[in-house]
């Protein structure tokens, strides 16, 4: 293995120093380090963060390799500063058996660009009718701990209760896509002024809030862990705030796009802005930002959702919901919160690693810890060009926007996956 000496780097916003990486670990941190055998990376002006961890990624393999593969998604993740991603279960076939989660896990290892941690489906085929073999997935080589029917809500309250209870046996967590399906039948966007003007069927905020309210009560009742995917409304924030104050074991995520974009984007009828949960209002964005800063919302997760061109270049109502996110998430966080490095490390690396149980990730660079880290140039600004993204898909909502920050290098267990802003393989 090669040793790397990273010089003049600010570790999570601290004073510039040097980092020596050797044998997959951070060997030393301090000023004026030297190592004759090490490749020197001049990181003057750069900030080192613990490698980012995404709790919500759609890699589309198996099933839609035309939109993304484990490898292409891993490369996009590494370029975004990630060292670990959790792959959602709504593949084809669905990741609802030990066999499928092991396949995804193995593909991730073969790609070797980030640690790919599969998420298992809660119910067979995401159909919301009976539990998938959660224990078998937990016991598999993939070691699944997060279970989610994401894309679908586990709407049946009895099934949700059972799932929450059952995974306690192996310290699992249910990640809920909170959406009361009867309230969002046919929904195309957020219900409000814009949906009324555009004549698109609206899904009300209460469809999300009602399920979160129910689920925190269920989790409290059975003493289980609940994770809430992609929180998108101010009302959801209030439900979570109250639940946390009562001591409910609930964590929650928000996506970069829900921190930045409003439902006004639908005015173009360009389905690149169609996503579920939908883009909401400026008031929701303000509440989500505040909640993330305070910790009522624990983490940023991308909900990276690649879609083939033909699934987006069509009428709004016929398009699939979802947006790319891995290669732009850190830039959006910088745009929204500025250089609050400790906050960014907490919300995008340390806490998601802890929720997912990914030891070795989410740890600040220090002697003796695994060298999973990323180097950010906070002064850089870049124009997002869809064609230049590493993802197989092009459905970024930030096309031609100028965003702050650039990932210069990413290291996974001491080996670079990105150097000079380019993927190593």
């Amino acid at each position, binding site marked *: 293995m090669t040793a790397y000496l990273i010089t003049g780097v600010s570790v999570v916003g601290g004073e510039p120093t040097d980092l020596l990486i050797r044998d997959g670990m951070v060997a030393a941190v301090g000023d004026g380090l030297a190592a004759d055998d090490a490749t020197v990376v001049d990181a003057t002006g750069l900030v080192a963060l613990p490698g980012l961890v995404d709790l919500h990624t759609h890699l589309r393999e198996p099933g839609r390799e035309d939109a993304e593969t484990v490898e292409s998604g891993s490369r996009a993740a590494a370029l975004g500063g990630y060292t670990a991603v959790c792959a959602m279960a709504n593949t084809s076939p669905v990741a609802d058996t030990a066999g499928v989660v092991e396949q995804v896990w193995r593909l991730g290892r073969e790609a070797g660009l980030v640690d790919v941690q599969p998420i298992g489906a809660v119910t067979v085929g995401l159909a919301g009718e009976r539990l998938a073999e959660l224990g078998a997935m937990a016991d598999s080589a993939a070691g699944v701990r997060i279970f989610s029917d994401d894309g679908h809500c586990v709407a049946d309250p009895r099934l949700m209760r059972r799932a929450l209870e059952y995974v306690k046996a192996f310290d699992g967590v249910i990640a809920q896509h909170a959406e009361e399906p009867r309230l969002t039948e046919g929904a195309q966007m957020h219900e*409000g*002024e814009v*949906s*009324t*003007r555009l*004549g698109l069927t*609206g899904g009300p905020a209460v469809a999300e809030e009602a399920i979160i309210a129910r689920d925190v009560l269920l989790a409290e009742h059975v003493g289980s862990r609940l994770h809430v995917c992609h929180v998108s409304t101010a009302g959801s924030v209030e439900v979570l705030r109250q639940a946390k104050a009562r001591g409910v074991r609930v964590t929650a995520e928000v996506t970069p796009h829900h921190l930045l974009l409003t439902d006004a984007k639908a005015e173009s009828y360009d389905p690149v802005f169609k996503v579920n949960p939908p883009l909401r209002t400026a008031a929701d964005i303000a509440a989500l930002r505040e909640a993330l800063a305070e910790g009522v919302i624990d983490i940023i997760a991308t909900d990276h959702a690649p879609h083939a061109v033909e699934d987006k270049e069509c*009428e*709004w109502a016929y398009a699939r919901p979802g947006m790319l996110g891995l290669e732009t998430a850190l830039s959006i966080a910088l745009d929204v919160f500025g250089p609050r490095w400790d906050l960014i490390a907490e919300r995008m690396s340390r806490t998601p690693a802890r929720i997912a149980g990914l030891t070795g990730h989410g740890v600040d660079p220090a002697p003796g810890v695994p060298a999973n880290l990323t180097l950010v140039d906070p002064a850089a600004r870049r124009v997002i060009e869809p064609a230049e993204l590493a993802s197989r898909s092009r459905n970024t909502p930030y096309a031609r926007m100028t965003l702050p920050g650039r990932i210069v290098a990413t290291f996974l267990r001491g080996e670079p996956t990105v150097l000079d802003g380019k993927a190593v393989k």
Partner: protein
Amino acid sequence: MIRHLLSGADLDAATATLVLDTAAEMATVAGREVKKLPALRGRTVVNLFYEDSTRTRISFEAAAKRLSADVINFSAKGSSVAKGESLKDTALTLQAMGADAVVVRHPASGAPHRLAEWVDGSVVNAGDGTHEHPTQALLDAYTMRSRLGRLDGLHVAIVGDVLHSRVARSNVLLLSTLGAKVTLIGPPTLIPVDIAAALAPGTDVCYDLDAVLPDVDVVMMLRVQRERMGDSYFPSAREYARRYGLDGPRMRRLPEHAIVMHPGPMNRGMEITPEVADSPRSTIVEQVANGVSVRMAVLYLLLGGNNR
């Protein structure tokens, strides 16, 4: 003149008035023995209909033909569209055929906006999903103006399923632009959220038809689909008709001069009784005739007929 007509909001007061004035000139053609003008000779107008709509398609077809345009009717059924061709590929095909204008009817809101990005010609929205139907609003405005002599200061009640109505959205936008006041009436389940903020700030909402009738110049009844009952928008057709249907006694609560409109097709006995539909106050047949004149004006102006 604007390039596309996608929404009632595309028209400012001056442009809308120009369309109505032009339509009045076009109407004189209908009275001639030879109902044809040479204005669009050599131009191609494509009627691209993804929904069955005999009356709107025929109206556009008659309008284009009276202006001497070549008309191609492209219906989704039995064409490549039924075989799953995407809207974009269809657009590129029409583009290659040199369509000067595409008149599009589509079940998906916003489809004409997408189409306008992919073709060089003018796109006319002939009804998209539950979004808009701007030429219907123009012909309604034309009908009001010819019956009542003005639009500015009129009070127009639009009654029924506003939530799913493209006619209502376009009418609210256009009538507000032209100085009329609109009150939307229907059960609360069928009035979309934030409608005034979404469309026109002066718009009122009322759930009581009887309270509004004595104060209006125009009452426009919207078609209410019986299937909405299944979605619990209202309990039964009978209850709907009792609370929001326009019958003889209700019609007699209107001011003497007030007119009754309906964009068609009507559900007789549901939102409107035969007595009202066939009364002298009803403009329903007139609206159809005016539709051709207004669509002639729209095609003429969009295709630059005024520059010749």
